[in-house]
């Protein structure tokens, strides 16, 4: 109970800090819209490739952009942790009667909230740009985006606490974001990819989320397929959350 209340205080603190940076808010909200419109225009003719299942590329692209944005925004979650670590705020919080789990959970829930908000905006813009989907599918894809984003945010915080260095975190996140996005079916139908990328994509969490999200959004859903990938993402989130909590212990051993 205390744990949940403390996590809530920390989430609200982070969201309030975000809200007070209008430029940050503007960029956070505009960036996914830009991605959707830019990539939608750039790769438009992909829909004409023989064997491409979807008639509209925007329909196809929307879940990909949702997941890519989740990755991009959640990946930087560890930056605030490094700043707090350097400033001394983290040390004060760690000597306060605040559970480590609540501290991590607060930071992750803030990422979850931002990812969900961004996803809603992407879906709205996609709808305006001609993509069609049901409300149920839209709600379901939010769950997948939240799982993927939160897991990546936990990973980012773990790396932040282990490296305690902004450059290392930027390097690690940049190193992962693009390959994870492009080795998935975010922009290209899986059956049209080279065989080796198809194999890699089978193990790529971004692909799990993208393909599941796409099925949910189009309403042609293989429930076994979606449930398996949902389960895998949940497991990934659990692993990343444990990693982040453990990284706290490693940090404390070093101080």
């Amino acid at each position: 109970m205390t744990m949940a209340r403390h996590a809530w205080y920390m989430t609200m603190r982070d969201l309030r800090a975000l809200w007070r940076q209008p430029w940050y808010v503007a960029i956070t909200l505009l960036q996914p819209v830009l991605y959707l419109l830019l990539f939608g225009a750039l790769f438009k003719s992909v829909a004409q490739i023989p064997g491409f299942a979807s008639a509209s590329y925007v329909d196809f692209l929307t879940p990909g952009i949702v997941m890519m944005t989740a990755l991009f925004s959640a990946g930087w979650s560890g930056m605030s942790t490094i700043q707090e670590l350097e400033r001394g705020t983290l040390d004060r919080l760690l000597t306060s009667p605040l559970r480590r789990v609540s501290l991590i959970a607060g930071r992750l829930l803030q990422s979850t909230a931002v990812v969900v908000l961004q996803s809603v905006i992407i879906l709205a813009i996609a709808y305006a740009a001609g993509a069609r989907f049901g409300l149920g599918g839209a709600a379901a894809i939010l769950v997948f985006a939240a799982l993927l984003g939160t897991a990546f945010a936990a990973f980012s915080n773990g790396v932040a606490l282990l490296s305690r260095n902004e450059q290392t975190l930027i390097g690690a996140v940049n190193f992962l974001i693009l390959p994870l996005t492009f080795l998935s079916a975010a922009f290209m139908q899986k059956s049209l990819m080279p065989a080796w990328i198809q194999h890699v994509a089978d193990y790529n969490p971004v692909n799990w989320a993208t393909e599941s999200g796409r099925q949910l959004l189009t309403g042609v859903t293989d429930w076994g397929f979606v449930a398996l990938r949902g389960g895998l993402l949940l497991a990934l989130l659990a692993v990343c959350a444990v990693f982040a909590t453990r990284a706290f212990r490693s940090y404390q051993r070093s101080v």
Partner: protein
Amino acid sequence: MTAAIEATDLVKTYRGDVRALNGLSLSVEPGSVFALLGPNGAGKSTTVKILTTLSRPDSGSAQVAGFDVLHQPEKVRLAIGCVGQRTGLDPEATGRENLVLQGRLNGMSGRALNERAEELLERFGLSEAANRLVRGYSGGMQRRLDIALGLVARPSVLFLDEPTTGLDPDVRAAMWSEIERLTADEGLTILLTTHYMEEADRLARRIAIVDRGRIVVEGTPEQLKSELRGDALHIQLGTAEVNGRVHTALAHLGEVRDIVVDGRALHARADAGARAVPLVLQALEQRGIAVESVTVARPSLDDVYLRYAGRRFETTETATKSEARR
């Protein structure tokens, strides 16, 4: 009465075999101000980190407010307030929001918390700035808010880790008055770390000098000062000297002891400074050692520090008489 803080044989080694604490023990009486005085890297902050449950010792044990820091860290955290070396504030929140969050984490809520926050803002002169973002606060204001955060839950033990480092002299003086007022608070025990002698002298009831991870001497400021009998002689020489020549010149006088030469600076002690000065000058002149200036001073904590913290003694040849170091 049991001690408010009790540490026994704390040892802490960091990666790379840096031994930060080497068997440090201390005991702090409830309701008193205790200062850990020492140079940077002596182990003061490591001690505070262990006592505030931030860090764990390799061996040794400690109790704070009656709770074991290793086995009951949650209880310790509820009983203490911590003001770290760096500011622990959230710059993107207002002063009041910082206070309220800290209070909530300590289990306070509602009107009691609001009133407490208001009271502390008032007391630390932050009422007008209460609704402004902390990022716009001056260094002194941030430090005052740091202390207010440490006090919000009415702790029984307050840790102040170098509370005035990096502050302007006038802000530091104001901070000292604030801390002095805190000590008037009933039952509040304060553990303070500092490398300013003046600060320890003014604020603490007891001082422990820390060097290389252990306490080398402990006592009241008066006790420590009286350990150094007589006056301190500080002589500026015309040229850098090695100790041997100066020692030979002064040893037979019988007036001075604890002779230390550090480049052009010559430090010595004398039972009666005024009587020793002409004799010392004469002896130096006879050996052809030029003197630029002479000062005679009553012993200060500075001298205690010089004697016990040891750094300068390490790098200098010392001509110590057997009586000088017990």
